[in-house]
């Protein structure tokens, strides 16, 4: 799990709540700029933090343009390519997308972009609901190390990491402030 523990000894803070706020606001501007037909855009968050991030971006779009763009949930657990090979079985959740997807632009929203396998699974999941006009990808943090030919369209922060490090994101916790940390394991 990427759940944040900022006081863990080896955790280096990368983004605080304010930096996250500004990054998501900028992503909202970029989405507005790149999508003249905002009413056709769906922000599909990957549970659980991607869903929270998608809702925040939608709130910024509303504040800037006074347009409500649709949000959804795209669960990737049942589309992963490693079921049956890991000791821990991913927990599946229901997906929820506005239908039909035809003529819409679906923007996949995740907290951390890493190997790209989650994004690939999300594209497969989206395609089982229909055939959107476009699929795009937004991530709060891009930490590199792609294993598939996938690149993001919107990035909050590019964060070069080593594979031995862990990126932890906390967002939308009722008790503690938002933040991004890198942990050496």
């Amino acid at each position: 799990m990427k759940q944040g523990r900022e006081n863990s000894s080896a955790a280096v803070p990368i983004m605080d709540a304010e930096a996250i706020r500004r990054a998501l606001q900028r992503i909202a501007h970029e989405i507005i700029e790149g999508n003249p037909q905002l009413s056709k855009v769906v922000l599909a968050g990957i549970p659980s933090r991607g869903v929270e991030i998608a809702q925040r971006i939608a709130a910024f779009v509303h504040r800037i343009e006074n347009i409500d763009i649709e949000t959804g949930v795209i669960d990737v657990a049942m589309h992963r390519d490693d079921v049956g090979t890991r000791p821990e079985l991913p927990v599946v959740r229901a997906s929820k997308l506005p239908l039909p997807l035809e003529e819409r632009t679906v923007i996949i929203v995740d907290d951390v972009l890493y190997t790209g396998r989650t994004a690939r699974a999300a594209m497969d999941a989206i395609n089982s609901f229909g055939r959107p006009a476009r699929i795009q990808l937004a991530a709060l943090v891009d930490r590199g190390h792609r294993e598939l030919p996938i690149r993001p369209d919107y990035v909050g922060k590019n964060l070069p990491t080593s594979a031995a490090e862990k990126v932890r994101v906390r967002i939308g916790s009722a008790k503690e402030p938002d933040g991004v940390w890198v942990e050496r394991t």
Partner: protein
Amino acid sequence: MKQRWNRKDLLGLRELSAEEITFILETADAFKEVGTREIKKVPALRGKTLVNFFVEPSTRTRTSFELAAVRLSADVINISASASSLAKGETLKDTARNLEALHADILVLRHSSAGAPQFLAQRLQASVINAGDGAHEHPTQALLDLYTIREKRGTIAGLHVAIIGDILFSRVARSNIFGLAKLGARVTLVGPSTLVPREFKKLGVEVSHKIDNVLPNADVVNLLRIQHERQRKEYFPGIGEYTRFFGLTKERAKLLKPDCLIMHPGPINRGVEIDSEVADGLQSVILDQVTNGLAVRMAVLYLCGGIAT
């Protein structure tokens, strides 16, 4: 995070914790959504092989498991008793070991002997899913009943569930009793004393032989099929008499609370345990049970078959 599921087999609800049962129901929520998609198929069990091994005849349970497996992208082989080498005298264990030698990953077993799934689960690497063993357990039927109650009423704890009919021979009743009790429901068993002996009270349920006293207080009535094929005369005076004393007739249904759910595991005997008008009425969730059975079986196959072995 603590793994919420660690079992390779699903043999019964008796050995499951309330938390495990709830986790299956939550997982089924996700798989129910898959049934609403344009493409109703996910790759979760791609490359796995499931064997439907039904030593007792069954159409709906076997079909439901088959469709569940196909929607998870598993390959499915169906074997019935008459077509298998059991008919040629091979033992159950040898048949199952042969299936495993073919690298079957999941074995769904229906058998007339209680304990047959346990017997195989201990001896095979493959996951064993009990699809009904004798008069013992039928866990996926009870899980889909629990799922349907939870879906329609929001919760199970605190509800009063009446299970009506042939309890003595019913694995559906037993699995339901275990599951409902663990999730905090109050259960009353209703039927003639020959089919609902008072010994059942040891399982923590109430027993009644007067259906009209129970119906007005029930939040759910689950009507079990009268199993003609298992009935012997000494238990059971006759169909007409059963209907007169225990059938959910049009008139009796008026005793029910307006929001009481009417359930039946199927296949229904119209005019015997339930009147046609009642089975097709607004309170009936009998077809929801069928739809939910698919989601619950996908969840069970995913959880038992998806862990690395």
